[in-house]
């Protein structure tokens, strides 16, 4: 999977539209908030189109492309404009620049869908490759296991996240086994293939725990919802944070890992 080129770069006023993602809209408001704070810290003017719902991926992955196209069309209308769209999720970003054009390949409005894809950036990719930021200020005193989500395979997001995390004072990124393997979430796969999904998640948690991190970080809350939920259900909770929260917290808290987790 690769992001489309050329992609729309931010203009001088750094105006962006935020796609908060449905999972943050429903469960992880602090992640969406951290994304706003991080972007504003970088001098961006953040618009939040109020009509936004979901990127359409659940139905796309489920094979119901007619239902998915309905949602994508709504998203295209909602995000009308000519500035970059920033989304704190590699998965939703990939849906817009890769998945949606696939399910629209025979549709007359493919150009509008593809145009939205060219404007869409995953957060870390936008910070590093859109804005040219290569180091992150502040401090964050923690040992971090970074789970690179699968939808960032082949995109610039993984390297961008690595670069930002490695630049934060006090933060130590811990390698762990089989980092390239999927966590087992996979959207509705997590409930239609529960044994395989949780088998994959348990293996991922074993690898992560062996590295003894203070916090598990990812650019996708869906992976963390699965891993965190599995760990908690098993009676051994792990602390999870989105990359946006780490970036924001590095600017706050005097560099200490904050007491409350999102």
């Amino acid at each position, binding site marked *: 999977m690769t992001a489309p080129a050329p992609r729309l770069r931010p203009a001088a006023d750094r105006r962006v539209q935020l796609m*908060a993602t*449905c999972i943050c*809209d429903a469960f992880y408001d602090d992640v969406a908030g951290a994304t*706003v704070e991080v972007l504003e810290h970088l001098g961006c003017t953040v618009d939040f189109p109020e009509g936004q719902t979901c990127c359409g991926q659940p139905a796309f992955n489920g094979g119901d492309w007619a239902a998915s196209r309905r949602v994508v069309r709504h998203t295209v209308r909602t995000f009308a404009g000519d500035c970059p769209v920033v989304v704190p999720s590699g998965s939703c970003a990939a849906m817009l620049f890769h998945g949606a054009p696939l399910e629209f390949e025979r549709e007359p409005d493919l150009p509008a869908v593809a145009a939205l894809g060219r404007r869409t950036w995953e957060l870390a990719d936008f910070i590093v490759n859109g804005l040219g930021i290569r180091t992150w200020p502040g401090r964050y005193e923690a040992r971090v296991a970074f789970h690179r989500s*699968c939808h960032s395979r082949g995109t610039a997001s993984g390297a961008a996240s690595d670069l930002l995390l490695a630049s934060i004072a006090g933060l130590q990124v811990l390698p762990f086994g089989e980092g390239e393997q999927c966590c087992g979430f996979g959207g509705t796969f997590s409930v239609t293939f*529960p044994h395989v*999904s949780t088998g994959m998640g348990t293996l991922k948690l074993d690898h992560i725990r062996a590295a003894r991190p203070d916090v598990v970080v990812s650019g996708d809350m869906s992976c963390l*919802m699965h891993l965190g939920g599995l760990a908690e259900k098993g009676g051994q909770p792990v602390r999870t944070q989105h990359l946006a929260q780490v970036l924001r917290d590095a600017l706050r808290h005097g560099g200490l890992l904050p007491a409350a987790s999102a």
Partner: protein
Amino acid sequence: MPNQPLDQFAARLPAEQRASVYQSTKGTHEKRTQLLFDQFADPDRLRQIAGEIKQHVVENLDTYLPAVEAKLRANGAQVHWAATGEEACAAVLRIMQARGARRMVKAKTMVSEEIGLAHYLEERGLEALETDLGEFIVQIDHDHPSHIVRPIIHKNRREIAASFEREGLGAYNDDPETITRRARQFLRHKYLQADVGLTGANFLSVESGRIVLVTNEGNSRFCLAATRCHIALIGIEKLVPRDRDLGLLLNLLGRSGTAQPLTVYTEFISGPRRPGQPDGPEEMHVVFVDNGRTDVLATECRDILRCIRCGACLNVCPVYRQASGHAYRSVYPGPVGAVLSPLLAQGNFAALADLPKASSLCGACNEVCPVNIPIPDLLLRLRAKGKEEGAPLASAGAPPMGAWALLASQPTAWKAALAGGKLLNYIPAKLLPVPALRAWESRRSLPEWRGGEFRRWLRARRRAAERKPAP
């Protein structure tokens, strides 16, 4: 919610079997990656080029197939065309009958598994003996391969030792070297007695008509050493345009499949024995097998025909590692099988329509594929096909998306749902009104529902900013 068959199979898989599949696939995958990245500056570029070569072949079969037929005939081989598996089996039978042949020694070929050749010949009173060690064990156990390259990845040596004892191949001994030695001893006699040697082809060069075979056991050479007749059973997609393309493809095949720079044996066969040559089969037949491939060619999933059967996608696949190969209920397991098997099912797509769902779409398969097949995209296309055709297995256990799509295309309804979802925080998990949520909650805790909180926070932040204009 009704369960998916592959997930149920995975749930029943003995832990020991899962562990051995995991160790074996993980080991090969890691060695494969190390070899490729240690030895090549840009292996991903090589995968792309190899993919382009094979895609070119797939899209030009109409000219390449007649060209290679002419070349094969000029080389002295006889060429047969089989539209179906049944026709391919019948062609092999006719060749054997014409020679009065009764015994076949077989090298490992997936297409022969696909068409059920050994069983077909045995039913007609002919012997068709597998000579690849793994396939031999599968055959004596009346089992099925569970991996494209390692057919017995699901078996341990104790089971194999017991099978050998049962078949009269020696007293129980589970030392791998002893097992191998006993199989070799048994097979060597069979090579000498056989009338016909059957192989597949890893590649077939259109330019020269050369058939390329790779093995690690040398059994395909033995199959052709003493027999008078060579039959090569070849899927129509196995072509490469030129001999020089083999340099790239062989380099990728060995590394991707078994983490070897090159397999132990690589044979190039360009026809039957020629005058003046001391040995080799005097007769050579090539049976081209379609068996649904041209139907695949007509779909948007034709990229799957690039596959060179290395098994790298199986090795890296987290779902394959959890479920093992038999969970796929077909000759081709793993990610490639989840695409290819339903497509080759010819009119029975619905029976395997669940396989494209058996993936988290993580994309690891695409990342390791030596011919860069976009497997996740093909799985998605087949999911859409399953939905369009209303195949019940495609939707088993899956939450319906119609109501969700209505909600997600109407902002007012969406916001109401965000607010209403807070009820979830007060309802015990087992009473949750949505099957998908219940299924989630049975294995993972559900986070607190905070629908609408972000929007409230953002509005407050904007109001505060308006009251305090920036300096």
